[in-house]
Structures are given as structure tokens and as C-alpha cells.
């Protein structure tokens, strides 16, 4: 127990130590996060009227970002499957960064749902009267929190073992790894079912939503990880082989192809049949009765998707610069497609045929940016702490030997020692 507390203490100290770039980055993120908190406090006082949402379009940017981020959390599964199922060793050393990403992203998801609530002060009602299994939202609460706990356990256990300088016992984490793989698929499926289950919203009421969701998640997640790993490689001395990146590239290739194919299936079904069903899709892709707020967005997303898919298929994307461009395109394209492109059109036209467009407000945007900054902050800290610990620079044994009077000595010095071993730009 004492050892565990020392571990937490050391992690905390490590998170405060870094060079000026680290501090500048963290300060900037903190600033944006506080900006979001400021806007949220406004929203608490005045209500959701500070957002662009209306009775017609009753979900907006919050739920759009939430939906996208659930997809991003898949990144972990896409690293875990090759390593633990197919014994791909290239990815073995980087799998933990996927899991840490899942932890931070799920935290962001939970925040996005919380800021969307009209009465966050009644959050405990969820515990007192949980409409399970009828409400898909309760399924999502279980799926997301379960995924968070699974990943926290896996990373926490591995990092703590490294801190204690002992080999992890397989029985304590391998079963959880496999449960987490299935669970990763479940968070997407359940989140998709949240929308698919609504008979009154034809745009969502389609069986293809869940598979599309998975395909786009398995493209955007690993694309994000490809970028992250290069950042980790650049700023720490953690070794990330190019082979690891290229394994992920193959995953994104396949996922993007499936995603584009499913998009084609959906567009064909909607537009060729041309039933009343098509109104929302028409609003999204072509505009409806002179309203076309989303049209430029979705075509940007489609174009980016196509360019990214082409780039990923070409051998050119074995060059890191091209690969990075393709990754950025994928991430942004899917953010548009799985965020605003999936949520907003379902509300336009309204069930009574009224067309009210949605325009996010400044407050709403600040809150979204704040949550993104907070998520990046958490992820940076997690990576910052785990790299030296996993490398064996910060261990309990070392701490005991350098500090016989553990808590009396200067606390930061130890972290600094670890850091000085760490950066290798």
C-alpha cells in the first residue's frame, strides 16, 4: 500500500517536470481547458440556451464530438489485436500508448455527455434509478465506464509492475486484454445503437450505422496513434520502430476501404430509391429547400476521405511525410463525417417537416475546445509518466536507494533525474 502511494506520488512529481516545451504545451492546454470551464460555468448559470441547440435540433456539437471520440477510443483495440492475437512484435512496445489514449479519450467522452446534460446536478439519479436494459443510454454508460476501467487496469498494472521492477503476472492482465478487445467493439456498437434504435429518425434508423461506425473508428483511431507515436518517439527516448507505424498503416488501409464502400452503399440506397426517407441525406449532401449549412462540410469530408484512401493505398505513404498527411486527412474527414455529419442531419427536417438549421455558438465551441484540451492534457501526462517508468528509470528500488528518508528529500530532483535521461530530440 505504502509502495503504491509512493508510486502515485512519483507519478505526480514526474508530471510536473519537463523542459520548457513541455511546460509551454501544458500551460497552453491548461489555458484552453480553463476557457472551456469558464464557458461551461456560463452554461450552468444560463442554461443550454447558450448553445446553438433548439427543440428542433436538440443535439449538437457535444454529442457529435462524443460520437467521434467513442470511435477514437478504438485505437487501443487496433493495437492490441495484432499484438496479442497475431503476436505481431512490432507493436508490442507501443500498445500501452493506445491504451492510455483510450483512457483519456473515454474521459473526454464522459465530459462531453456531462456538459450536454440540462441538469448535471441530478447525475446521481442515474445511480438511483437506472433504466436498464430498456434505455440504450444506460448500456452506453456501462460500456464506456467498463472500457475505461479495463484500460485503466491494464495500463495501471503494467506501469506499476515496471515501477516495482517485477515482471507482470500474465493472469492479472492478459484476460483483461481480451475482454477489452470485445469491449472496444461493444462501445461502438452500443453507441451506434443509441441512434439506430430511434424509429422516428429515418436517417439513423438504418442497420449500416453500426458497421460504418466501426470501420471509420478503426481508420481514425490508428491514424491518430500513428501521429502520436511519432510525437512520443521525437520527444522521449522510447523506441518506436517504423515497422510499428507501417503495421498500423495497413490497418488504416483496410478500414478506410471498407468505410468508403459502406458510404457508397448508404448513398446508393438513399438516393436511388428516392423515397421520403431521403430528406435528411439530401439535406446533408445536397441541401434541402434552400438550406445547406452542412453541404460544404460533408463534401470536404468526402474529398478528404477519398484522398486519404488513395494516399494510403499508394506506396508513397511508406514515406512518413505522406503517411502523416494521409493520417491528418483521415482524422479530420472522420471527425466531420462521424460528428456533425452523423448527428445534425437526423434532426433536419424535424419529425414535423420543419427545417431549422444548427449553428454552434462561441460558448459551445469554447467548451468543446476545453474538453479537447483537457483530454490532451491528460494524455500528455499519462505518456510523460509512463515512458520513464516503463524504461525502468523511475522504480521503487531506485527511489529507496537514492532517498533513504524517502519523503524528506527534495521530491522534484528524482523526477528530474528521470527526465534528464529521457529527452532525445
Amino acid at each position, binding site marked *: 500500500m505504502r509502495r503504491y502511494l509512493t508510486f502515485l506520488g512519483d507519478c505526480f512529481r514526474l508530471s510536473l517536470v519537463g523542459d520548457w516545451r513541455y511546460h509551454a504545451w501544458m500551460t497552453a492546454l491548461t489555458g484552453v481547458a480553463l476557457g472551456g470551464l469558464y464557458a461551461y460555468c456560463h452554461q450552468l448559470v444560463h442554461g443550454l440556451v447558450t448553445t446553438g441547440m433548439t427543440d428542433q435540433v*436538440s443535439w449538437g456539437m457535444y454529442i457529435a464530438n462524443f460520437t467521434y471520440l467513442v470511435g477514437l477510443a478504438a485505437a487501443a483495440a487496433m493495437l492490441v489485436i495484432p499484438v496479442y492475437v497475431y503476436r505481431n512484435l512490432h507493436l508490442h512496445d507501443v500498445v500501452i500508448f493506445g491504451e492510455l489514449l483510450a483512457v483519456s479519450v473515454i474521459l473526454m467522452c464522459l465530459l462531453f455527455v456531462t456538459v450536454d446534460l440540462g*441538469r448535471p446536478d441530478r447525475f446521481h439519479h442515474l445511480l438511483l*434509478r437506472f433504466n436498464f436494459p430498456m434505455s440504450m443510454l444506460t448500456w452506453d454508460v456501462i460500456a464506456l465506464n467498463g472500457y475505461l476501467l479495463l484500460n485503466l487496469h491494464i495500463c495501471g498494472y503494467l506501469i506499476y509492475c515496471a515501477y516495482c521492477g517485477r515482471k507482470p503476472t500474465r493472469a492479472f492482465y492478459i484476460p483483461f486484454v481480451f475482454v477489452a478487445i470485445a469491449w472496444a467493439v461493444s462501445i461502438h456498437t452500443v453507441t451506434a445503437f443509441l441512434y439506430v434504435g430511434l424509429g422516428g429518425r429515418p436517417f439513423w434508423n438504418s442497420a449500416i450505422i453500426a458497421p460504418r461506425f466501426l470501420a471509420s473508428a478503426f481508420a481514425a483511431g490508428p491514424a491518430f496513434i500513428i501521429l502520436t507515436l511519432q510525437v512520443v518517439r521525437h520527444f522521449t527516448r522510447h523506441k518506436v520502430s517504423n515497422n510499428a507505424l507501417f503495421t498500423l498503416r495497413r490497418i488504416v488501409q483496410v478500414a478506410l476501404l471498407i468505410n468508403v464502400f459502406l458510404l457508397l452503399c448508404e448513398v446508393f440506397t438513399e438516393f436511388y430509391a428516392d423515397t421520403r426517407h431521403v430528406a435528411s441525406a439530401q439535406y446533408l449532401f445536397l441541401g434541402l429547400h434552400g438550406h445547406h449549412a452542412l453541404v460544404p462540410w460533408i463534401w470536404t469530408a468526402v474529398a478528404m476521405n477519398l484522398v486519404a484512401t488513395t494516399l494510403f493505398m499508394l506506396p508513397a505513404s511508406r514515406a512518413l511525410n505522406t503517411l502523416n498527411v494521409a493520417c491528418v486527412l483521415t482524422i479530420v474527414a472522420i471527425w466531420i463525417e462521424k460528428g456533425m455529419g452523423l448527428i445534425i442531419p437526423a434532426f433536419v427536417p424535424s419529425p414535423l417537416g420543419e427545417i431549422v438549421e444548427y449553428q454552434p455558438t462561441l460558448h459551445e465551441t469554447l467548451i468543446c475546445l476545453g474538453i479537447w484540451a483537457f483530454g490532451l492534457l491528460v494524455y500528455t501526462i499519462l505518456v510523460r509518466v509512463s515512458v520513464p517508468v516503463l524504461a525502468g528509470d523511475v522504480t521503487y528500488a531506485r527511489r529507496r536507494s537514492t532517498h533513504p528518508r524517502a519523503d524528506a528529500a527534495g521530491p522534484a530532483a528524482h523526477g528530474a533525474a528521470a527526465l*534528464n535521461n529521457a529527452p532525445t530530440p
Partner: protein
Amino acid sequence: MPGDDSHPAPGGTPDGGVPVSRRGFLAQGAAATAGLAALAAAMSPLRHLKDGDLPSAEEFLQKHYHEMTPADKERALNRIREQVRRRHGVTPTVSDPPPMDGVEFVYGLNISRCIGCRKCVHACVAENNLSRAPEIQYIRVLEMEKGSIDVESANHHYDSDQVPRPDKWYMPVQCHQCADPPCVKVCPVGATWQEPDGITVIDYDWCIGCRYCEAACPYWARRFNFAEPTIPPGQLNPHIAYLSNRPRQKGVMEKCTFCLHRTRVGRLPACVEVCPTGSRKFGNVLDPNSEVHFILKHKRVFVLKADVGTLPRFFYYFDERGSRYHEPIAPGPESGPLPEGA
């Protein structure tokens, strides 16, 4: 930069024994202070919170409607009475009328007669203490194109001084009190449910404001309080009930309750009472002598969006004879007698 001063020189051996220097300590203190100040600034809008914005301990601990004992319920009603008196300056009568045995309410709307005057909309607003700003209305009257029942071609914002307009017909939509309500199914906290008399209600004190029910409703019957609802002084209807027209709070859902505070004690809903054309019919479908029973049995009846399968208790019907479309009120000499069965 906290801890910077105790860094050993790069490349040097880590030396844990260096104590924190004064400068380092001051820098850490300044950083911590700046951080706290920024946090305080970020949270500063909270100072605008008013007394009523935060739940009192009693409200916070209040149980779900279904779990309240009679004593709990009494306390809740007293609290509501007190709050309304403080905020609106009138002492209301607060009740919680239970559903009656052997009663299932249904609603019939005669589209042959409705002229789209929107009197129902405004009577509903006044009766149910709906927010005037931001404006909330439970009833939406659609001006439909002749020959179409497609809501997408409907006009929601026609001028009700000009009605009825030629070649238009009017279709008011409100909560259909479905027998298989999707809004109830999706609520994560069970804050909304269907009562034995068929009315779907909301416990405004239990709703967490996630708006999933609003997304689920195929009839766009639910409304959210995006801001603190306002009712001008003197316009509050003081006869209020827990599950229907008591003043709502910011951040919760609300919806039509068939005026249960009236209908459960034998009166008609406000929209029925005010309708100048007699287009609106309401009653107990289980009573074979009721008007709605007769309508369902003998009239040409349909439900809106039958394809979504939610089994509405709100029926539209039309007259075979006596419609404003078929028989002019004062038939001119040139119009011959209508053939039988027109």
C-alpha cells in the same frame, strides 16, 4: 517552472540531496498561485447563480415519484406551493390527482372542421403555464397542401388571422400519448412513464435533461427548457398539479399531459374547451357512450405516421358530410344538392 532549480546539470549524476532552493520554492509558489487564480477566474460566472438555481437539500434528496410515500408527496407539494408563492406572488392550489379506474383517454381531431385558428395553442400555453420567453408551445398547427398529407410540404408559420385559406387544410399536432411510447423506452433514469389512463408524464424533479426522449419522439411532442422559463406577472394559472402544469425549471423536459389536472377530475382539456369549431373531441374510450368511442367506431379515422408503430391515442378523422370542404355554410343557388354519400 516547478522543480527546475533543483535539476542537476544535464549529464550530471542525479543527486537527490539538493534541497529546494528559495528561488525554486518561490517559483513553485507563484505558479501554484497563478494556477489557482486562473481557476477562480474561470469559475467566476458561477457568482451569477441565483438562490433558486441550486437545488435545496430537500429537492436534492427528493425521491422519484414512484418511490414517494404519501408523506413525501405531501412535503413535495408543500415545497412547490411555497416556491410558486415566493416566485410568482400567488398561492396556488397544488394537487396530484390520480388516474381514474376504468379510464383510458383518447383524443379525436376532426380535420374536416379545423380552420387553423391556433386558439388551442394559446389556451394550452395559458392553462399549462408554458414559458412565454423563451416561447414553448405544445401544439403545432400545420397548414397542409390540399391533396397531400406529407408534413414536409406543410407551412408551420402561416398567419392565423388569414385562416382558413383556400386550398389548404389544417392539422394540429401535439403529444399523441402513444401506447408504445419510444420516449419512455429511451429515458435513462425513468423520469418519464405512461400512466394507467394512457397519459405519458414526466417527473420534472427527476429529469436529468439529456434530451434523448426529444430525439426519440416521432411527433416532435417534447420540449426542453433551454433557459429559465418565464411567465409574466399575473398570468400564472394557480391551479397546478405535480405531474402536469406546475411551473417547470431550467434544464428539464416537458410535454402535453392531456391537462391531467383537469381531465382527471372530469373536465375537458383546455384545447378542447377553447376550440371554436368543435374539431377537438376528448374522452374515455372504454366508455361505450362516450363521443370518442362513437368516433372511433363510426368515423373515417387515421393516425399520423402509422408506420412508426407507436400506437397513438390521438386520432384524426373526417366527416363524410358537413365538412367545411363539402358543404358551404350558405350554399349559393347555383350549387345543387350534394349526391348521397359525398
